[in-house]
């Protein structure tokens, strides 16, 4: 009944201005397969326009793909938002776009934002400035994503910037999040020692991959299926589901 899935829930594509041009659907899926990952999430900055292409590229590969986005809240906190369907993530994207400033991306400064198809071919350029804060608060992001049936995981909380812990000091007590993410090179015990305020929160470790070699980071989910509801249960350690971070840190070559 249960599957054990190695997962990387934080992967950028060429839509993210800071991602390498190699971050196209077929190469992401090939890399995920090579690493034995059973589950990935596509989480570009404040946009989901390449999600459907990665899902299409994953067909028949054995890699499950969750639609997602990495949101930048008003407090400059990065949050992984994960969903089950493309419809859900596009509904969320519409809300997010309405809360981004109406500014154009400067591709020379930030990098280009490419929308591609399942083969990685160029479709169009997203001209909107994505590397910027929405005017949604942390709480508003969590409430809205939950209402759409999604899941929120604060990203790279142990990094020096765009981190919930660095920017806001601690997790607000009633925030409806099941877990926090630590950086790809971080060890759980060391992060727990450094940030005792994270006691009680489950950790995942993700690649925050902006290039193929950064995919991995090795978090294992014991779930009945790769769905948001199952991940939520696993992150809360309920109904026999659970999550575990690999003891070793993969070398990123």
């Amino acid at each position: 009944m249960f599957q054990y899935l190695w997962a990387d829930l934080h992967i950028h594509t060429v839509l993210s201005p800071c991602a390498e041009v190699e971050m196209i659907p077929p190469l992401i899926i090939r890399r995920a397969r090579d690493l034995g990952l059973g589950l990935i999430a596509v989480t570009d900055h404040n946009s989901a326009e390449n999600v459907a292409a990665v899902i299409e590229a994953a067909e028949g590969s054995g890699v499950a793909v969750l639609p997602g986005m990495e949101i930048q809240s008003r407090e400059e906190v990065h949050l992984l938002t994960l969903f089950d369907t493309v419809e859900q993530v596009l509904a969320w994207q519409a809300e997010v776009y309405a809360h981004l400033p109406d500014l154009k991306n400067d591709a020379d400064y930030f990098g280009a934002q490419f929308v591609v198809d399942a083969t990685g071919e160029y479709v169009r350029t997203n001209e909107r400035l994505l590397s910027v804060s929405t005017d949604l608060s942390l709480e508003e992001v969590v409430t809205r994503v939950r209402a759409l049936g999604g899941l929120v995981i604060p990203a790279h909380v142990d990094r020096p910037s765009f981190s919930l812990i660095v920017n806001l000091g601690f997790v607000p007590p009633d925030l409806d999040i099941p877990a926090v993410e630590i950086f790809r090179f971080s060890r759980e015990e060391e992060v727990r020692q450094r940030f005792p305020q994270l006691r009680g929160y489950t950790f995942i470790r993700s690649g925050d991959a902006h290039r193929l070699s950064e995919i991995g980071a090795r978090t294992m989910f014991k779930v009945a299926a790769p769905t948001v509801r199952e991940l939520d249960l696993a992150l809360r350690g309920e109904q026999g589901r659970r999550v575990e971070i690999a003891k070793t840190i993969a070398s990123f070559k």
Partner: protein
Amino acid sequence: MKLREIVDALDLQVAAAADDLEREVSGGYASDLLSCVMARAQAGNVWVTLQSHPNIVAVASLLNLAGIVVTEGSPLDPNTIAKANEEHIPILTTPRTTFTVVSQLAALGIRGVD
């Protein structure tokens, strides 16, 4: 200098804990990263920030700060105001920038922690 004198001199709006302005201000600190505030701000300091999340109240309360100046008209969550009233942490608001507020505080003789 008392917090009330700063409110008057800088023409700040009092958004919360209006009855708690008699506190003596020991100095000032400015940052939008709450982890830095937790590490460096001193008891009795006035803290200048454009962060308006409810966590600012918990941090100010933990450190026993004199009050918080929220700059650039950053929108205050009703929760932030309610918590500040509960914890007796004055929240003072202004449309001006952090830079301007800090320079005005310095002109009043308020010094930094270093």
